[in-house]
């Protein structure tokens, strides 16, 4: 155990949350505050050593896909050994879901925990290059904070691999793994076809580890406290804690760190029975509040309702908004954010968007819903990335959850009274390749 953690009571570091975010709220941690709370980096001085701990901890990716972190690092380490090529490790802080704030919050408040995780991941796979990919230039404050953090680490010699900052374009798909690699190689931030997997052949051909910022922060703590500590919160199948972005009524987004398996009821305390909850963001699912409050925040529980934890986004539009208009606006956004590379996505998403607008304004024809259902089926599983799949999931869940509201709209009625949009939608769609750079 390191010097700094010895000072803290054992049960405090063990179970209580938050683990990742600073305890005293909103003050960002500099190097001094960071090492006072967590101690120095526990380098293992052996390649691969940390991977066993990550596997035993059961850590999964917190970017949305929940892929086992240990397996991903193993794949990169194996590819590096077989091909005798040093890997690249990349922190993915692009956080392209417009409703999510958790990675930006984490990078702002606890940048050193993420950077520790990046160093430890680099050591575990034997990487000689480390990159932090996020909105460095577009959000000046974040860029300044991260440059400061890196400079602090250089000054004390904390890092063994130099960290480069790289800019993520403000597009929905710019955080998709193959898009990250494409962009860092000098191209547009749009997905490429798999195979090859980037763990085998990623950035300029090197085995590449792309890991969400929060996932790396968890790694930094597992490296310090071990897998048993990590499993002291969460469920047996889905251990640990996760950051969630919660948007209720008209309040500002709130980022909270909660254990996996937490009852949604506790997170949605003020939700009314006639409201709906969007779980997992714009590639996620709408659920009636009455159903959501019976579930827990883990994929095992949510799968039964056709939903997934995703990147931990929970949204409850206030009762005065029309959920169909909100949904149609999001689908339009998703259609415009398609990279337009794959035929089914290029053709299916705009059609679904147009149909949802017809439904929302009460102008649907007899065939409209059947068309949407067919298009949702046609796009699923047929893109190079999961953008069509996620969009189809979102659309289908809306038609099921809002069936009664759809019928009301057919009769020319709508429960929405406020026209102010609730679900955040960024301005401006990509028109030329420059917009993906």
């Amino acid at each position, binding site marked *: 155990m390191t010097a700094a953690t010895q000072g803290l009571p054992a049960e405090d570091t063990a179970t209580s949350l938050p683990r990742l975010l600073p305890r005293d709220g909103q003050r960002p941690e500099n190097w001094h505050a960071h090492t006072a709370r967590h101690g120095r980096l526990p380098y293992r001085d052996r390649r691969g050593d940390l991977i066993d701990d990550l596997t035993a901890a059961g850590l999964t990716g917190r970017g949305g896909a929940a892929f086992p972190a240990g397996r991903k690092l193993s794949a990169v380490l194996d590819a590096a050994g077989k091909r005798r090529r040093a890997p690249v490790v990349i922190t993915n802080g692009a956080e392209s879901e417009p409703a999510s704030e958790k990675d930006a919050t984490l990078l702002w408040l606890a940048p050193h925990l993420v950077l520790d995780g990046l160093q430890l991941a680099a050591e575990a796979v034997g990487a000689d290059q480390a990159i932090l990919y996020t909105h460095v230039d577009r959000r000046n404050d974040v860029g300044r904070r991260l440059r400061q953090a890196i400079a602090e680490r250089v000054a004390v010699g904390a890092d063994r691999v130099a960290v480069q900052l790289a800019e993520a374009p403000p597009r929905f798909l710019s955080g998709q793994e193959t898009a990250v690699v494409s962009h860092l190689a000098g191209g547009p931030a749009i*997905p*490429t*076809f798999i195979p090859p997997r980037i763990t085998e052949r990623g950035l300029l051909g090197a085995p590449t580890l792309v890991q969400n910022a929060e996932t790396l922060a968890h790694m930094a703590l597992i490296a310090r406290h071990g897998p048993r500590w990590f499993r002291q919160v969460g469920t047996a199948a889905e251990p640990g804690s996760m950051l969630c972005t919660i948007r209720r009524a008209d309040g500002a987004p709130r980022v909270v760190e909660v254990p996996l398996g937490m009852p949604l009821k506790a997170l949605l305390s003020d939700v009314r029975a006639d409201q709906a909850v969007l779980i997992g963001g714009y590639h996620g699912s709408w659920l009636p509040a009455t159903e959501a409050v019976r579930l827990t925040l883990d994929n095992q529980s949510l799968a039964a309702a056709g939903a997934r934890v995703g990147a931990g986004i929970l949204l409850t539009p206030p009762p005065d908004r029309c959920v169909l208009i909100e949904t149609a606006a999001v689908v339009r956004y998703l259609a415009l954010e398609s990279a337009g*590379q*794959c*035929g*089914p*996505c290029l*053709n*299916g998403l705009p059609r679904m968007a147009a149909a949802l607008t017809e439904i929302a304004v009460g102008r649907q024809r007899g065939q409209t819903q059947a068309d949407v259902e067919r298009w949702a089926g*046609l796009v699923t599983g*047929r*893109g*190079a990335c999961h953008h069509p799949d996620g969009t189809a999931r979102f659309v289908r869940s809306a038609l099921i959850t809002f069936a009664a509201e759809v019928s009301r709209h057919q009769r020319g009625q709508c429960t929405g009274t406020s026209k102010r949009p609730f679900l955040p939608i960024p301005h401006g769609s990509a028109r030329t390749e420059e917009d993906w750079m």
Partner: protein
Amino acid sequence: MSEKLLVNPIECEGHGACAELLPEMIHLDEWGYPIVDGRPVPAGLERDARAAVSACPTLALRLLRS
């Protein structure tokens, strides 16, 4: 050893040659893009599968050993 068909949806431009040459395993959606049967290619269709792969103008269709 069995083989499976795989289409690269980024390369595919919906020319439709594959569906003409291998209708048993490939049909076109309403926009002209192929929907490919992902199961192993049966022994009797291997020649047609190879013909479909080589006929693709954008080289988007592949046979992968599984």
